[in-house]
């Protein structure tokens, strides 16, 4: 009796009623290309995801990546839906090479691009940012 009275209700061993949030994957293949500027003189400077274009404009991002020179692919795990991304690069050449290569200003002049994408559950969406 004593033992039985001490017995508490056992904890549920299965996570019934608990479901993981459905997510899909965004893969950003952040390649660097330019017709004649040396590619190691163009660096990735930003990669952000936001819920809509206005939030991109205001800088209210859902997620951002710490972009580097050593990584070409970046992954974001997002709930299904429509989103916007913004990517940016900068030219680090000296002199007037950057402006001659189409970057505004000279050294550290940057270019931005943005676009819309859709995330579906358990699917991988790939985007390749392109810069004018």
């Amino acid at each position, binding site marked *: 009796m004593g033992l039985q009275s001490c017995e508490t209700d056992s904890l549920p061993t299965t996570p019934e009623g608990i479901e993981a949030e459905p997510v899909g994957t965004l893969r950003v293949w952040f390649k660097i290309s330019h017709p004649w500027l040396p590619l190691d003189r163009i*660096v990735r*400077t*930003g990669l952000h995801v936001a819920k809509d274009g206005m939030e991109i404009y205001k*800088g*209210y*991002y859902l*997620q*951002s*990546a*710490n*972009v*580097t*020179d*050593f*990584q070409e692919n*970046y992954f*974001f*795990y997002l709930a299904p839906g429509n989103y916007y991304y913004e990517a940016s690069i*900068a030219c*680090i050449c000296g002199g007037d090479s950057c402006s001659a290569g189409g970057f505004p200003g000279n050294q*550290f002049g*940057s270019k931005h691009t943005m676009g819309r994408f859709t995330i579906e559950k358990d699917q991988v969406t790939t985007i390749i940012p392109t810069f004018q």
Partner: protein
Amino acid sequence: MSRQAIILFLVGLVMLGCETEVDVFKLGESTPVVYCILNQDTTVQSLRLSRSYNSSLAAVAPDSPDSLLFDRALDIVLEKVQGSSVVKRTFFIPVDVKKDEGFFPYTEHWIYQTDMQVLPNTTYRLIIYLSESEKIVYSTCTTVTPFDIINPAYPEVRLIHLQTDHNPQFSWTKSNNAGIYQFGFSLHYDEYIEDRVTLKTVNLFLNTTFMLESAGHYYTQSINSAQFYIRLHDLLTADPAIIRKCTGVDAIVLCGGEELAYLVRLQQGGQTFNIMEYSNILNGVGVFSSRLIRQVNGFKLTNQTIDSLAYGKYTHDLNFLDRNGIREGGGG
């Protein structure tokens, strides 16, 4: 000689041979404890010297708490060695330092300092002459070689994003003779108390890694962004009268010599009070090694990071201003 006389003579010899003098209360010998990490980023080199007693040898405790320190007027020499010859030599002198608050078994405290530019990949020798015991404490080490941080880079155009959705990565080139690296950020902020503004900096080393073997051209490690906020909360005082504004961060990588790596690694796996499992000090215990810091200055933080500093669950009570330079609910 009769047989009895011979036996008595032999017994007498044996008893005389067994006679020894026993010291019931023998004072234990002290062991010098030396910590000297050559700083390759400055010319001022510091050394900490104290002593320890092995309680298994001493039946009587030290009679004075200050006996944990040696005499100030010791001959402590740092030598730069090339081949088999000494090309430069300087003497350490005692310098009084302010102790941290807390319990210490001695009333005074000093370290020894000398002025010497420590060069990379160079052998240095440390010699301490203890006149009272006529003992020479001795060690050598070869300093670490320069290295470079290659990521994070370009603070002119890149922001640091400290959120767990994308943790920052650090990459740096290998330093020869190094075995341990620590990396993190220096956070710069303005501290406002009433009408007074003070520029302040706090160092946050967020990860430690041991790399004794060569692993290619560079190392890459990430840091846990949550640790940034947790550590910051531990280091800063929460005071409603203090408003803080983050002005930027520097990325820092600190590397230490192989000797330091062995010491830290053994300390991490050992007992709390058993800190002497590794030593490269002859006739003493401790460590003689070198260290070098590299940093990339002038990064800004992303807006999400600044808002997390202001309102995140770890740092909200530190009163950092948000991306708009205000604090919702007051301040700013």
